[in-house]
Structure formats: C-alpha cells, structure tokens
C-alpha cells in the first residue's frame, strides 16, 4: 500500500460520502409538497451531500498532511531505539550518518552495510512497514468516522447549507491568509538580514556610495579589496535599462492596444491578440540569449557603421529586448480597459461629429487612464525585477553611466551574482543581496501603492 492508494481511497470515500448524504436527504423529503418550513428540507440535498463529503475529507486530509510531516521524525526516533547499544557513544553527526546508511540499506539491499547492523536494518524495515500501515489505517478510519457521524446528523430541518457555506468561507479565508503570511514572512526575513548587513556596512555608504565592488577576501592572504558597497551605480543601471525598456514598450504597447480595441476588425483581433500574448509566455531565458546573441552583436555592428562605440554587452540591447518582452503587459491590459469604456461614450462623441482619432484622444484615453497607468506601472515592476535578459545582455560591470551603449548592471543581476556559488552566510557580500532585495522591494512596493492611488483617485469617473 502506498500513499497513492490511500489518497485514492480518501477521494472515493469523499465521493461516496457525498452520495450517501445526498440520498439520505432525498429520502427525508416530506411527501407533502408545501411552502411551509416544517414541510420541506431546510437545505437542498446537494448541501447535505457536500456536508458529509467535507466531514469525510477535511479531517482525514489534515491527518494525512500531519502524518506526512511527522513520519520522518517518528521513524528516526524509533530507529534510534532500535539501534540500542550500537548508537551509544556516537556524536550527533555520526548517529545521523549511521541512521542514513541504515535507511538506504532498508530501501535497497544492494547498498553496502556493516554485517553487524543487518538485524537493525531488518527491524527498521518492519518498523517502517508497521507504522506506515498504522498511519494509513488511522487516516482511513478518520475518513469513515467522519462520514458516519456527519451522515447521522442529517435531518429534515438540519441546516446543512449554513454549515457548508461557513466551511467554505473558512477555506477561502485560509487561502488568502497564505498569500498574506508569505508576503509578511518574506518581508520580515529581508528586514532582519538587511539590518545585519547595515551592522557591517554603513547605511550612507550603501545608499550614496558610487563604487560597487562586493568582492571580499575569503582568506587573509588573498589579494582582493575589502569590498565596497556603494549601490548607486547598480540602481542607476536598473533605472537606465528600465527607462529604455519603457521607452520601447509604452508607445508600442499603447498604440497596439488602441489599434486592437478601436480599429482592428474582429477577425484580425481574434488571431492577433492571442499571438501578442504569447510574447508574454516566452521564458525570459530565451529573450536573454536572443538579446545576447542576436541583438547585442547587431547593435555593435551598427555602431561600427555609424562610428559609435557600442560595447557588445550594452544597456541598450538589454533594454530593447526587455521592452519587447513587456509590450504584452502594456498592450493587453490597456486593450482591456479601453474596451471597458462604455459604448455610449463613443456614441456620444461620434454623434457630436468627432472623428475616431478625436474620440480616442479626448474621450477614451482619459476615461481609461487609470487602467493604462496601472498597466504601465505593472510593466515597470516587471522590468525592474527582470534578471535573465540583463545578466546575458548587459553584463556585470557596475559602471555609473547614462550612456546606453556601455555595459551596466542591475540590482537583480547583482543579487544573482552575489548568491551564485558557495557563500558564507555572515559575510557582507552575501548580506548585501538582502539589502539590495529589500530596497528593490521598497521600490516596487511604492510603485504598486502609487498605481493603487491613481486607480482609486480616478475610479467612478464613468459609470
């Protein structure tokens, strides 16, 4: 028996529970049809069925997850008991190693093991089997007990509907709490590591320093600088690349949105719009090597033709490709909000003798402005957070420059390079990643708040 069978068993019990509840409720339907409450079921049979199914499923699934969570530690403790004398006198690490080899031997008899330990391996196999079966039996019984007691509660005036709706509202509350708590957890961990970082590097150096070189000597005799953590160049690089991307994406995205919603024939729209949205589905790695291998060399060759010095890793190449990547974010959302402007406003404008262009410029765009702004801000957040394209196309050199033909680097790329490979977790180099991440988080958070503010301010403009 495996967990898969147990899971299938649970699903079956839940379905059976639903039908049992349903049938019992149908059986309790009064023969006299009337509107009087005492002459009808309080809830539809479906609610009774769902009630039983929920009592069948939720406790047993909770038990299952608890078991999956606890089983390893229970087994480990029991293995410790089984080892008996063999484990005495060993340090904690050695004990864990020993347990590991016993586990491997139990899984596959070809794994080498000391002959003296063979009895332990055998008893461990028995332990695993018996606890596994025991756990499954407990869980299966849980489901059946839940089914039995919940179906007993079904009665003509039993308020199954209220209970089912209550349970679902709790499930939905928990689901939304997961997202909230995750955000909270991420922020808290960022804050703590950032505070540690600022214990080693001064706040002003990080925020206002002009030199970024996070390499730190691992050994005393190593030839390396002590590292400097002026984050201005990398934030400037982020700003530069994001700006280039937005210069590409906003006009193209906006124009394509206007064309799609106001000019395109339904036929063109029906195939062009999904195609445009595919752009958003291309993995950023693909964009990255496209930028590094096609766009960057092309730009450099053009630069040679025009006598410009464009390095083969340039902010321009990364920005342009990133701009193309985020076009669908701008166009698709803007298209939706322009479409959402009521037809009556278009009619009103046309009836006054306005042309299509005037209607778009004077009525539709102002009315759709909040949605357009939030789509642009969403695209900006996306551009700021983008890593892959920049890593491949813009390079790693933290130059402080406004020249798009030079190599620059961004916050996300630096976080990536700081954490790739073996790291000490208490060196400022590693902790710098948290500080960068935290500042980046603050920036995107501000952008989101700004977007919300704009949307709220202009909401209810038309109705």
């Amino acid at each position: 028996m495996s967990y898969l069978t147990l899971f299938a068993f649970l699903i079956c019990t839940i379905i059976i529970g639903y039908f049992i509840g349903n049938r019992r409720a149908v059986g309790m339907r009064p023969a006299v049809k009337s509107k009087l409450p005492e002459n009808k079921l309080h809830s539809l049979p479906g609610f009774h069925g769902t009630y039983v199914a929920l009592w069948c499923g939720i406790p047993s699934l909770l038990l299952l997850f608890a078991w999956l969570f606890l089983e390893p530690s229970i087994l480990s403790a029991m293995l410790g008991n089984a080892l008996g004398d063999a484990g005495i006198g060993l340090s904690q690490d050695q004990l864990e190693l020993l347990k590991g080899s016993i586990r491997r031997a139990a899984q596959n008899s070809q794994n080498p093991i000391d002959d003296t330990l063979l009895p332990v391996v055998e008893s461990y196999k028995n332990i695993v089997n018996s606890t596994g079966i025991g756990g499954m039996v407990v869980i299966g019984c849980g489901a059946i007990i839940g089914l039995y007691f919940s179906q007993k509660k079904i009665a003509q005036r039993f308020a199954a509907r209220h209970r089912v709706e209550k349970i679902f509202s709790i499930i939905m509350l928990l689901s939304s709490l997961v997202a909230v708590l995750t955000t909270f957890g991420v922020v808290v961990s960022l804050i703590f590591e950032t505070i540690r970082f600022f214990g080693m590097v001064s706040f002003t150096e990080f925020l206002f320093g002009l030199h970024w070189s996070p390499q730190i000597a691992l050994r005393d005799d190593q030839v390396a600088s002590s590292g400097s953590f002026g984050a201005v160049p990398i934030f400037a690089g982020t700003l530069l690349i994001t700006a280039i991307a937005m210069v590409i994406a906003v006009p193209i995205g906006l124009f394509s949105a206007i064309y799609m919603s106001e000019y395109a024939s339904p036929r063109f729209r029906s195939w062009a719009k999904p195609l445009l949205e595919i752009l958003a589905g291309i993995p950023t790695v693909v964009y990255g090597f496209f930028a590094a291998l096609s766009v960057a060399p092309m730009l450099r060759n053009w630069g040679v033709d025009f006598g410009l010095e464009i390095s083969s890793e340039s902010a321009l190449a990364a920005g342009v490709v990133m701009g193309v990547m985020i076009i669908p974010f701008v166009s698709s959302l803007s298209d939706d909000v322009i479409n959402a402007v009521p037809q009556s406003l278009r009619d009103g404008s046309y009836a006054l003798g306005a042309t299509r262009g005037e209607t778009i410029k004077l009525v539709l765009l102002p009315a759709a402005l909040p949605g357009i702004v939030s789509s642009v801000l969403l695209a900006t957040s996306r551009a700021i957070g983008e890593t892959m394209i920049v890593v491949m196309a813009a390079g790693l050199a933290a130059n402080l420059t406004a020249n798009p033909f030079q190599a620059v680097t961004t916050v996300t790329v630096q976080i990536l390079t700081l954490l790739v490979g073996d790291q000490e977790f208490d060196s400022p180099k590693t902790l710098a990643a948290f500080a960068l991440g935290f500042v980046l988080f603050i920036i995107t958070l501000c952008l989101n708040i700004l977007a919300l503010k704009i949307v709220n301010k202009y909401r209810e403009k038309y109705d």
Partner: protein
Amino acid sequence: MSVQKTGVPMSEKQISSQVGKFTSRGVDVYYGDKQALFGIDIDIMENKVTSLIGPSGCGKSTFLRCLNRMNDVIDICRFEGEILLDGQDIYASEIDVVELRARVGMVFQKPNPFPKSIYENIVYGPRIHGMIDGRSDADEIVETSLKRAGLWNEVKDRLNEPGTGLSGGQQQRLCIARAIAVNPEVILMDEPCSALDPIATAIIEELIDELKENFTIVIVTHSMQQAARVSQNTAFFHLGKIIEFGETDQIFTNPRNQQTQDYITGRYG
C-alpha cells in the same frame, strides 16, 4: 383611451404643402442577412417635432440612426436607398460624415455625459469643429447652450464639477445642451426620457417644445402620451415598415390603419 393633445394651429397641419427637411425614399437597412427596415418613405418637416412610435424591435431607432449615419459604426450594418437632407443625399460619397453629424445632432436613451466637467462637456463639440476662438467664445457657447437647455440656473455655479455627478434628468439636459452647442439644424432623440422620472420627463418635454422654434426634432418614444404631447407628426413603425405616417392629431384620434388603432389604444401584443 383618451389621448391628450397640445393645441396645434391649423396652418401647421398642411404637411404636404411644406418642404421636408429630411426626405427618405426606399430606405432598406440590413444587419448582416437580417433586413431591419423595408422601403421607408418619410418626410420630416423643418421646425416640427416628428415622433417615431412602434413596438420594440420595429426599426424606429435604426431609422433614427440612419439620419446621422450612426449606423456606420456598426460593421455588419448595410444601407440601401436615399435620405436627402435639404435635397442633398447624406449617403453620397462626397458627404463627410463629421460635417453631417455637426448638422444633425443626437441625444441618446441613457444620458451619456463624458466623464469631464460640465463646461468641458459643452465645449467638446464646438472645439472639435473649430467653432471656438479663445476663452470668452467658449464661455459664451457654454452659457447660451445651457440656457437653451434650461440647465443654466441649476449648474452655473458648478461648471467645473463632473457632468456625471448631475441627476439623471440634468444629465440628459446636459446632453441636449452638448448637442445644441454645435448649433445643429436637426436634433435626433432616441427615447430621451425612458431613463427619467415623470418630473424630469415633463421638463424635457417642455424643452423639446421650445427647441422646435430653432431646430427640427425627430424623437423615438415608447410613450404614446409623449408622442401626442410633443410632436406634430407621427410615424408608426411595425416590423421594419411604416404602417402609417401623418399628423399626430389625426394618427391619435382617427387612425386610418387598424394596426395603428390597435397599437395606440394598447391592444397590441
């Protein structure tokens, strides 16, 4: 059923002796494969109110929208026949639809002010037609248009507030003011009171009566009483055809056609 009727001077009853502002001959309209209008012949008299009545889906709104070519916006809509405005075919290729709509304004069923200030709503049309030179021009157009629409006293202190913040009846009068501001010759009204309460409706009806001094008005309405109160001529549409067209007085007191009789006395459907 008794129908109220505003007093109409005898001289206004001679329809045939007057020249039509609009002359429609053999108008067929199709939505895709479905024919919505069948050979509509009608003369709309200058400085009169002409009402188009009939059950839902009879084509009266479709016909109204032909008069300023609003159906052009609908891709699948196809027009055949001839509509003359002052003797000129409005579907002729040399006609610019923008200029046509400046001459033939429209007010819709649901008030649809732009999400802009009251002031901006009024100057929208004149501005795109290049009728405004400078601020004083604009102020004047705003004031006269709102006065003619009977809204000036209610909104003169809050011209910069959004038009969408007005009540339904005020919004509809704002839309009428917006149409007037372009100084059209004809105003088309598509059930202008159907979203309004009786008091707002009465105000709009009074307004229509005043406006006919300067404008030719065509109004689609579902209310028989409204047609009888405001219009001088009435056309009864049914299933895409004109069943009867004549003076409102005659249609409501002595219809020639049995279907008309049934409809106006409420025996239809």
